[in-house]
């Protein structure tokens, strides 16, 4: 049973998040170990694994980006854990653009950057963060809809587009993380995981 099936949903990327949450709560009320405390050990063990499965399904589907990652894994028939399988990869155009930043990053790691260069890196970091947001929005909206409306024959192409966008996004986030580290600015500058 895949995660979409657990919630009785079609394999679609646009979904009613409110309804998903209600269904998650309903299933949890049925299966959570708290409500099976007096049951036999076998039933308790079943409640535990079922509940773990429901939680995993909800975690994968409630967040639009994780939902796409899960769908790509599912369509490709890979049984991988969260975060696996999408290697950070820049689109060819992006790679050339990144060359300068990567070089500055290397220098900074060696500890030889002046205030002005750091300021430039900061501007670049903010630019990439904005770009990452745009990429997120494109994935969540246009690309997700494209998948949902694709005819069966168009699906492999739609899937490839999703996959590439995920790889670009992962790449951007890695560079942003590196920049933040060099700039000594922690997590707070991160593009927070969109959730609700």
């Amino acid at each position, binding site marked *: 049973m895949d995660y979409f099936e657990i919630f009785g949903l079609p394999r679609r990327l646009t979904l009613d998040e409110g309804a998903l949450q209600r269904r998650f*709560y309903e299933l949890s009320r049925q299966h959570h170990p*708290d409500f099976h*405390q*007096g049951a036999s050990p076998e039933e308790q063990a079943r409640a535990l*694994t079922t*509940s773990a499965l429901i*939680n*995993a399904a909800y975690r994968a589907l409630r967040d639009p980006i994780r939902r796409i990652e899960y769908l790509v894994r599912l369509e490709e028939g890979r049984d991988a854990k969260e975060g696996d399988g999408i290697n950070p990869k820049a689109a060819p155009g992006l790679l050339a653009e990144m060359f300068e930043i990567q070089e500055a990053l290397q220098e900074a790691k060696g500890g030889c950057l002046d205030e002005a260069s750091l300021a430039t890196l900061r501007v670049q970091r903010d630019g990439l963060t904005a770009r990452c947001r745009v990429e997120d929005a494109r994935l969540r909206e246009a690309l997700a809809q494209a998948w949902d409306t694709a005819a069966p024959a168009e699906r492999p192409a739609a899937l490839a587009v999703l996959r590439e966008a995920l790889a670009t996004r992962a790449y951007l986030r890695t560079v942003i993380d590196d920049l933040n580290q060099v700039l000594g600015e922690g997590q707070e500058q991160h593009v927070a995981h969109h959730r609700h």
Partner: protein
Amino acid sequence: MSRIIGIDLGTTNSLVAYVDEGTGLPCVIADANGEVLLPSVVSFTPGGILVGRAARRALVRAPGSTIYSVKRFMGRGFDDVRDELRYFPFTVRATDGLLRLVAGDREVTPPEVSAVILRSLRERAEAHLGESIEKAVVTVPAYFNDSQRQATRDAGRIAGLDVVRIVNEPTAASLAYGLQRRRDGLIAVYDLGGGTFDISLLRVKDGVFEVLATNGDTHLGGDDLDRTIQVMFLDDIQSRHGVDLGGDAEAVQELRLAAEAAKIRLSTEERTVVTVPFDGFVYQREISRRELETLIEPFVARTLQPCRAALIDAGLGPADIDEVVLVGGSTRAPLVRRRVQELFGRTPHSQINPDEVVALGAAVQAHILSGGIDHMLLLDVTPLSLGIETLGGIVSVLIHRNTTIPTSAKEFFTTSVDGQRVVDLHVVQGERELAKDCRSLARFELSDIDPMPAGMPKIEMTFLIDANGILQVTARELRTGKAASIDVRPTYGLAEADVARMVEESFTYAEADVEARLLIETRTEAETVITHVERALRQAGDLATADERVHIARGLGELRQAREGTDRDLIRDKTTELNRITARLAEAMMDAALRGALGRSGAPALEGPG
């Protein structure tokens, strides 16, 4: 189903609660003297084990055999606590990664000490409810790791309690609030206790309490504030009286308790005077709230970063939070309230007593588990990422932090050498990339693998974190379908055999005559009063009238005599009597002390920074 009680096993105080079937409401259980809070202090005296108030009194007399704040040592390794050991009057040793506390002439593990506290609460509940109690829900800080949770469960077993659920303290608090007012929204629970700090963000909707993120620091609490004040006192005594009391364990404990009391008073008063009599001089110090706040500000600041991190993990901003709830005695400090208000832009509240709310919530969860409540459901998360060490010491994360529990992850392993029969695994918890920077939980040894060429066996391991936040691991070889045998070596925990032995040994304490223990407690109390009165006479005898001095001398003599006997009631009566006779003298001493302090309050040495 038999009754399940709810226990808040705190760093400073512990409590027990249950849900009254008649009203459906949770209530805390008081002891015979009407006291709800049981100080989490255990004293190992030659005559027997003391717990609670009696043990707390023993702190000043027998600091070397009295254990407090044991929660800080639960599930810990020596390296975790090395830095703070100098502040504790008891010695701590580590053998095989397991901490042992030296109390007098015996060595005890932290779970055994916690078990004494749990047993006392269990007996209290049994006396109150008139039935035997075998099951409990016990709370822990949300940020407790697997070892700390296991240690808590072991403590329950040693105390003869089946810990049917470990619940996170802030979530328990939210249940207590949720039962009271059914209102939906996003709630932040800020829990600053005696030794630990937690922040939990929850979505409450239609009776479901869904934790979105949690963060914290299991070594940050009221204890740290007391210690800072105590260190300031020690320095002050050194400069004003030229005495270094740092090495005097009894004096340090007196100052620690005085620091705690002053901190508590300064939550409601602008300034207060601390008076601690020592042999040869009386230490007096006025302290203002401003001065206190300067001292504790760094600790309060340390709580804000986890709050921000939790907000980020939940994908929320401070403005999204509908309600901020304060839990734990340390949140009574006005500075804490101000900083929390600034962070969330909203007035925090603590309508339910912050000392009791966690125990009440534990009782609610106990009631849910026994089927008494079916409209409420708690969905908690695991606070720390769980991973395994891979090549080069890098951690491969299997379960991310803030994942709703129960949760499970599968991982496949194989062999690297032909005929290899054993595979070793190192499981860690934490957010760092290198295994050595994370918390080592256990090493697993998969053995009895059928000899095959390298890479042929396919072993599937399932890591499951249950609703207690505790890890369970199973493994099977996929080709044969055979369950692999796993040997677990917990890095910082008790082995199964240790727990069984401790359960056995604990029966001998349990069988010890209750009357004998009560006698010890009464004698201890008498001894404390005698010590205090003798010291008062030495230092301020001139404040007493001639008549009083005669009375006091007679009272002292009678109590000393009663103390030698075994008539508990007589000892108690004589103790009360001596307290009564000396009440006026005590007041006169306090007055004199206050006059002294206030009279000199213009002197720079007594001024705070503000």
